[in-house]
């Protein structure tokens, strides 16, 4: 009996430990970079995650299908969600060591996950598989931390002003071309269309972005001094920002805080006044404007407005950044295959055709060339890209401006101001004190 037991235990030991031993021995025996062929190995499974709307999901799945047909030895498991909750989900995955091989990330998340540049796979190491030469140098530089290329930008984006031309026509106005025209549109809307119509709708996050652009144009200096870990602007500048908000509300340019909050915690493009054209403008990313157009009732037209620029402004104060990046998990077991998939999605002409401009205009020159050849380079996202190219961008955005604590800090102060709990002076004082305290805390 003991003999049988020991034989069984030995067999079990070999069964459990044998494959592990053979696996640990294998890397030295294999050639370093050869991709396995479909004939001699079982398919490799890659996991890939992204966020987006249904339109993006459908196109992305179609592209993955094409990739799998081209590379039968690779299977891609798609994990896709809407924007809401995506960061929390990915954070949990990264913390738990279960992040996908290839994942869509936001530019400012690099500050969270990869402060030393080692949070994601360094794509420079995969340059043989991944064609990087078609990407703008600035775009790659903004995606690089301490020499490590952490992600490949799908596109470069900025927030621009988009207006519902149909509503502006009803008001007998052309879309605003300057800050003054924007301010003047409010009273005209109230007078001609009634108190429920506004030329612009912004939540507090959008408002902070507008304030950024406006004050940078006025002062011709950065918003945040990253090296000092504090605001680069004075308390008076913050008071000016607070007054800009109160002026916009008083002039009927934007709905007040109470009116907006009456719709609850809902994305702006899903609010009825936007859908029906009563809120006739938005300050949105070039990569996101598509979903705003999608929700409009039929018969309405959204156009890109000329960017308001103060005379003498050295910079438009654009929040110009890589809109979305694809990063490879630093712990992936299949970096080459992940790079192959990433290269396909970024640079392949057929993939470019399938994905189109759904996530904005691709940053890859190869994808742009393919889309140009097919006559697909038109529409709002393309117009936005053209406008960005023509605007002065001497002052670069820092990722700290979009840090969740900084964003929420501004939101809390603007909300208190919007509800009349504090005046503009107090709001400016609190921005100066609270936001500087937050910056000192997060820029460690």
């Amino acid at each position, binding site marked *: 009996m003991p003999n049988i037991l020991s034989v069984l235990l030995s067999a079990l030991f070999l069964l459990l430990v044998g494959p592990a031993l053979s696996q640990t021995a294998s890397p030295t025996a294999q050639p370093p970079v050869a991709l396995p062929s479909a004939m001699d190995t079982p398919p490799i499974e890659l996991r890939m995650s992204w966020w987006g709307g249904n339109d993006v999901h459908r196109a992305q799945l179609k592209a993955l299908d094409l990739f799998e047909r081209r590379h039968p030895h690779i299977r891609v498991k798609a994990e896709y969600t809407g924007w809401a909750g995506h960061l929390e989900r990915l954070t949990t995955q990264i913390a738990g060591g279960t992040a996908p091989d290839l994942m869509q990330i936001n530019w400012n998340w690099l500050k969270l996950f990869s402060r030393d540049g080692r949070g994601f796979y360094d794509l420079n190491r995969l340059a043989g598989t991944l064609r990087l030469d078609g990407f703008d140098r600035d775009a790659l530089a903004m995606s690089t931390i301490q020499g490590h290329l952490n992600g490949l930008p799908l596109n470069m984006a900025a927030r621009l002003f988009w207006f519902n031309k149909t509503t502006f026509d009803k008001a007998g106005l052309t879309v605003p071309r300057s800050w003054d025209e924007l301010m003047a549109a409010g009273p005209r809307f109230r007078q001609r269309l009634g108190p429920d119509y506004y030329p612009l709708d912004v939540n507090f996050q959008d408002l902070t972005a507008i304030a950024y652009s406006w004050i940078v144009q006025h002062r011709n200096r950065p918003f945040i001094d990253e090296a000092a870990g504090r605001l680069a602007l004075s308390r008076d500048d913050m008071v000016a920002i607070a007054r800009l908000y109160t002026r916009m509300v008083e002039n009927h340019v934007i709905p007040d*805080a109470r009116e907006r909050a*009456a719709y609850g*915690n809902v994305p702006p493009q899903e609010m009825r006044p936007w859908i029906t054209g009563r809120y006739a403008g938005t300050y949105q990313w070039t990569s996101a404007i598509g979903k705003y157009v999608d929700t409009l009732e039929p018969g309405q037209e959204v156009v890109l407005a000329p960017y308001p620029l103060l005379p003498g402004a050295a910079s438009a104060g654009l929040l110009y950044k890589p809109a979305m990046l694809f990063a490879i998990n630093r712990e992936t077991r299949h970096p080459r295959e992940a790079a192959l998939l990433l290269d396909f999605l970024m640079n392949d002409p057929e993939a470019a055709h399938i994905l189109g401009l759904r996530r904005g205009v691709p940053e890859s020159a190869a994808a742009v060339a393919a889309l140009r050849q097919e006559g697909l380079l038109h529409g709002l996202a393309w117009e936005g890209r053209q406008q960005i190219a023509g605007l002065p961008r001497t002052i670069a955005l820092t990722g700290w401006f979009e840090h969740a604590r900084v964003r929420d800090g501004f939101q809390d102060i603007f909300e208190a101001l919007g*509800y009349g709990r504090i005046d503009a002076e107090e709001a400016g004082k609190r921005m100066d004190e609270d936001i500087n305290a937050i910056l000192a805390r997060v820029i460690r």
Partner: protein
Amino acid sequence: MYENRITGLLYIAPFLLGLVMFTLFPFVSSLLLSFTDYQLQDPVSAAHAIGLENYRQMVGDRTFRHALGVTLLYVFATVPLKLAFALFIAFVLNFKLRAIGLFRTAYYIPSILGGSVAIAVLWRYVFAGDGLINQALGAAGISAVNWLGDPAYALTTIVLLRLWQFGSAMVVFLAGLQTIPTDLYEAATVDGAGKARIFFTITLPLLTPVIFFNFVMQIVQAFQEFNGPYIITGGGPLKSTYLLPLMIYDEAFKYFNVGYASALSWTLFLIVALFTALAFGSQRYWVFYGGERGERT
């Protein structure tokens, strides 16, 4: 005997595994993490022990004090109202009416649906500025209320969502009502007692063990409310619906400050434990078990 024990252990193994992995492990690890500065994006090995610093920070944290106040207000509003409403409906559904089974099922349905994300989304639309409630008020000639945008009303909509899920408490009350001997009611009626007196001197005292059970359960649930405020108002406006579970979520998953979020979680746990202990301590004064106050027979 030994084989029986092994078989028994195997039967309960899935439960034990679940308990250890999904309850015990997070329970213990969150306690340990609450004494560290652990950030979610870093490996756990990068966390430093900081003693009671997170708990000290809480004392001076305005947001925490505010969230705690809102949470207590929510609990104090929700629990008594829900218990009273559930008892009232259970009382009505205890009468011998035609198709009573159908009514009981219908009134229970909101409890099945109520905690879901879909219902919270529906609630958001119903109470929106141009939502169904305001349209109905308008049709009745009453001016619209800014349910979600006015800090004075926003919490009320979250409370109403919780009240709407009265079914579970109602079923327990109904079961309790049906255990009260009918001869007590008959004797009281013969003695000339009115309906109100019968309710307050017979029904209510004999129902106190069930009320106590529901009371404790509702307190625990109310302190953990998350879905409603997260989806309907996002904690706003002006943080008027910013309950402690939302703050814990923000600290952990928005700001990645897991050490502090763990300390907040443990503080919430201790608060719930304190209220539960107070409830148990108070039962000797108002709960009747088999005719004796606070003593089981």
